[in-house]
């Protein structure tokens, strides 16, 4: 166990220390009401253990990177937090609501965007956002619609069917949906994967500003280490279903004798057990 998250966050203009992160299987002390608290989360698919008792939290306004090679358990973890995959064991609290027992209330404070979950292509941008506004119980839909269309420069596509938008535009519509209900925790699974570098930078800025302004916690997966360094205040390396490293993406590589986050990522991918042993 180690103290891996000491960054200061702003909430209502007052700084406070983010809570500590535990490495495995130990509940994090709820000093500042994290918007997401995952404790000893496990998922078995028959004999295969996809997620092995991970524990972590996300503070209000904090952007946390969830990193790992394909198949490390990132999407499985996100699916469990979204309530579409039942954990074998462990608990998930979103904004103090237990996801398993208070699913609707917990998911009202959640939203997500992922390249593998585009919105229905046979509805227009407006129609999709209207439907999801009802599903998420969004109040004052016209104002929220204007806000998200502004944020992602989608006004000109308001009445365009999502299916004929480019992949980058569809990603922006997905992000607009994800921010529609001003979630307390936002899950972004490779949100800029299909976007050109210039647009990706704008989107990163929008998400950072959104998180800072609304104190939304963000759990962000990406294979773009430059992006992770730019956006995340903390990262967790997931390998074979376990969190083996966690810390500030700007200082973490040096702690393990690496010059960049990408080099550290490659080391984790090739020698996860070695790095995990070093950490403990």
């Amino acid at each position, binding site marked *: 166990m180690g103290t891996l998250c000491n960054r200061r966050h702003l909430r209502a203009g007052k700084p406070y220390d983010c809570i500590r992160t535990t490495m495995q299987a130990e509940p994090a002390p709820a000093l500042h009401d994290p918007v997401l608290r995952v404790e000893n989360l496990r998922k078995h*698919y028959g004999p295969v253990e996809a997620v092995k008792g991970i524990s972590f939290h996300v503070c209000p306004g904090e952007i946390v990177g969830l990193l790992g090679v394909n198949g490390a358990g990132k*999407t499985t973890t996100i699916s469990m937090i979204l309530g579409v995959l039942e954990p074998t064991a462990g608990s998930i609290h979103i904004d103090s609501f237990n996801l398993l027992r208070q699913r609707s209330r917990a998911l009202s404070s959640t939203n997500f965007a992922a390249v593998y979950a585009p919105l229905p292509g046979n509805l227009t941008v407006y129609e999709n956002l209207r439907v999801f506004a009802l599903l998420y*119980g969004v109040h004052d839909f016209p104002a929220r619609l204007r806000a998200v269309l502004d944020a992602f420069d989608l006004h000109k596509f308001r009445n365009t069917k999502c299916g004929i938008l480019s992949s980058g535009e569809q990603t922006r519509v997905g992000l607009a949906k994800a921010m529609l209900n001003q979630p307390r925790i936002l899950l972004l699974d490779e949100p800029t994967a299909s976007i050109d570098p210039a647009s990706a930078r704008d989107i990163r800025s929008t998400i950072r500003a959104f998180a800072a302004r609304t104190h939304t916690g963000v759990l962000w997966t990406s294979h773009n280490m430059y992006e992770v360094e730019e956006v995340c205040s903390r990262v967790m390396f997931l390998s074979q279903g376990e969190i083996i490293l966690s810390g500030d993406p700007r200082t973490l590589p040096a702690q393990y004798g690496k010059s960049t986050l990408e080099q550290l990522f490659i080391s984790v991918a090739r020698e996860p057990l070695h790095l995990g042993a070093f950490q403990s």
Partner: protein
Amino acid sequence: MNLSRVAAIPLRQFYLYRGSAARIVPLFAWVTIDMVLWGFMTRFLGSLTHTHYQFVPALLGAVLFWDFMTRVMQGVTTAFFEDVWSRNFLNIFATPITMPEYIAGLLTTSLAISLVGLAVMIVVATAAFGLNFAAYGAMLLPFVFILFLNGMALGVASIAIVLRFGPAAEWFVWPIPALLAPFACVYYPLATLPAPMQWLARLLPPSYVFEGMRAVVSGHAFHGTLLAAAFALAIGYIVLASWLFARVFRHAVQTGLITRYSAETVS
């Protein structure tokens, strides 16, 4: 139950229908064709016999009500298939919507769609073939209601099948009305069937309805106990179908099928 979340499901269907002739035309076309086909069939059968048997209310009316029940079932399944076809499960089921709300939304959609079909059939059957609904008397509403409940139960059971076995399983669902029709005694009396088939027919609420319709238009009484039995069976099937769907959905969430639905199976 949150009505706003329930309303999202029919609203989505409204948007889809509003912009799609391919969805709107079938609402009118197939039921009109059915009424025209069976309307002429009824006239022909009426011309073959000199009895006073009322073919129009007994046969054309039965076809009309059977079509209505089929539309109710397909209203549920088609609304669900829209989420299958657009790979929308993850987006929908990651929202706060509960399963009862989702089902209620599908049923609301189905009610609206089937009422449109019913209205079209009533217009064609009455205007072109002189179907008079007064022939069914006070039993008309209970008959329609029981068929509506049965259509709901079939619809919910059907989407449970598709959720469990994947998108390709929709081909199990489309023929269900055709498979049930011989046992539902839509076109002929229960007594026409051999004994084992009669036993099966008595398990189906529509068989009571169509027996009742024929009795009423022939001037015979239809016992309230039979009506109650049909109603009880229909309610029982709704409970059973809802239990089945809840169980299948739970399985899908436990195994990860919801997130990998296009794979059809997680094994």
